[in-house]
């Protein structure tokens, strides 16, 4: 797809081009939004706000990088702001823990499929969920996460370690349950 021309058409206000851009990225971006929220309704709200931001700031896109990465970045920022603005996420985003918690070296094999893993991530408390997504999936450093969420770097590290440990334990349980079911199924 010729993103250059598509972006130019969008900047001219052509609705057809905007819809084409939306349809091209909406599916993947809804996946991003889904990982940060607790419901599909909230995820779609974030997606909607995010795309409005995309079209509003499209003139800032410099074509020096991937359009998909730029849009993904906006979606992540919109999702974080959404969490901050809504009370149901807010209470879990007020981090107070400052005790360092080391990240375990455990690297379990992720045997589950994409949607199952996404569901497990979404079961994390919002604070853990946001930090895990930002660090493990988006690749933000803890310093950057600290700036984004307004917390200390150490707090981010600690929260991530706990989130990671919790998720790995769930993955292990899930894998064990699956294995048992498989063994049970085989006489």
């Amino acid at each position, binding site marked *: 797809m010729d993103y250059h021309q598509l972006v130019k058409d969008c900047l001219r206000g052509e*609705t057809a081009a*905007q*819809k084409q851009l*939306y*349809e091209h990225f*909406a*599916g*993947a971006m809804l*996946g991003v939004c*889904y*990982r940060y929220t*607790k419901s*599909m309704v*909230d995820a*779609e*709200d974030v*997606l*909607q706000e995010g795309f*409005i931001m995309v*079209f509003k700031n499209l003139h*800032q896109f410099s074509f020096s*990088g*991937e359009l998909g*990465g*730029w849009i*993904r*970045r*906006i979606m992540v*920022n919109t999702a*974080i*702001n959404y969490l*901050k*603005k*809504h*009370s*149901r996420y*807010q*209470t879990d*985003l007020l981090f107070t823990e400052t005790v360092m918690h080391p*990240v375990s*070296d455990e*690297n379990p094999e*992720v045997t589950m499929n*994409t*949607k199952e*893993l*996404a569901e497990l991530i979404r079961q994390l408390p*919002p604070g853990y969920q946001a930090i895990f997504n930002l*660090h*493990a*999936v*988006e*690749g*933000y450093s803890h310093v*950057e996460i600290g*700036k*984004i*969420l*307004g917390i200390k770097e150490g707090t981010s590290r600690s929260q991530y370690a706990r989130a*990671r440990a919790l998720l790995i334990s769930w993955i292990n349980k899930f894998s064990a349950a699956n294995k048992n079911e498989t063994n049970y199924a085989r006489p």
Partner: protein
Amino acid sequence: MHDPKFEKEVQQKMAELEFSPSESVWANVEKAMSGRRRRGLFFFWRFALPVLLLMAGSGYYYFTRTEKHPATAKVQPDIPQAQQVSPAPAANPETHAAPAPIVSETPTATPVTHAATPDATATAIASPKTPDNTTYPATKGSSNKNPTLSSTLTAAGTGTPRTHSRNPLAASANRRQQATNATDNIPAASDPQSAAGTPTPGVPTPGTPTPGNNITMTSTDVVRQRHAYPSLADQRFAAAIHAGKLKSQNSAAAIKILQTPRRPWEAAFVGGAGISSLHQMQLSNYSLTQYDPATAAYNATQITSYAATPTKQYIATVGSGVSFWAGIQAQKALSARWGFSLGLNLHYYSNSVHIGQQVSSYIPAAASLLTSSTVAPIQSYPYYSAGDVQAYTNRYYFLELPVAIEYKINNSKLLPLFWDGGFSIGYLMGSSAVYYNTHSGVYFKDGGVANHTQVNLSTALMVGLPVRGLRVQLGPQIQYGLTPLLNKEQSGEQHIFYGGIRLVVFPGKK
């Protein structure tokens, strides 16, 4: 250091995560984008149009005022209708013929028409002859290049009823021509037949109109004069008397105009400084819950594990802040005491709130490791917790269009007092304010929650100060916003209040 194998595996899996959004998402995005375009146009016309109208009105006034000449624009309405030369009835040929002998010095029994003898009247008017029959060029006022004047003169000579145009220029030219006409017929001193040196007993001297005389000079009167003064010299002298009376009348009209007070629009520089604050109304929790679509959508999903807990309804005390403004004003006196003014101001308001720590900040362009080379800087919404950690100054920049009336309370020339009252329409040009969300209990920056259009009531009491070369008015002023600053669903009704000193400076003395 731990091996990020797990993270890489999660990244790969999450990169494949896709869902199909519902149709309503695109519909809402499209609606928001089209609404944004429409809103831009709406704001343009709502604010650009009044400014354009104001400028157009000012321009019209300015140019019409400079084009008007007192002799043409003001004398005309003050001259009584009877004084103007009445159109003579067509059935009376003698009436039409009467002026002709006076002008052309060639009395004839038959009516002289322009078509037959153009030189007899028009030439005499346009190029008056001296006693030695030397024709001088036509005067500026009687130039035949002026079509209005030409038609008027032609009508006078052809015997058709003389049409008095409502055009002040044409009317003025007509009157000037009448005066020239009459003046040209004042007997010259060298004229052997002239009786100017030896006026007829009982006949007043030209230029000294008899008090109480009716100066109305219709064609019928001219005929009567002809009968009263059968000789040509007497008729000339009577015409001179009429010219004198006409001049006298014009002078009287001019004096009357000078005595009538002119009340033009005046431009002034206005400004002020003081303090501003927010007047808070009572919060309504019920309505807030009802109007929060996100909360409603969340409750609809029946997810209980992260159900919203009742949040503390807390709003910090809003302190006052510095406020100042400046602009221009056009004022017109409606009477000796009342005046009306329009203006255009830029007004800065501020207030202070005590808030907690900032928990959101600017995200640098290179923040993302995944998309470090692709992203552009994006400003996340600044966000502050409730608390008393810091004092934050909310700033608002408004463009205001005030409309006011002014009343002069006393007649003192030393220290006149003025009361000023009116309203203004303001548009929020920019703001750095943080707004309180009663659901999440946080302060955040979001320009969308403010009502960008504000209607304010304002009143001031001012005293006129004797400053050399200027007219200065100075006094206290208060202003109150009738429109809530914020949308109701975001917080309680907050109205902007301003109190300060108002200064009006009129360049030049009245």
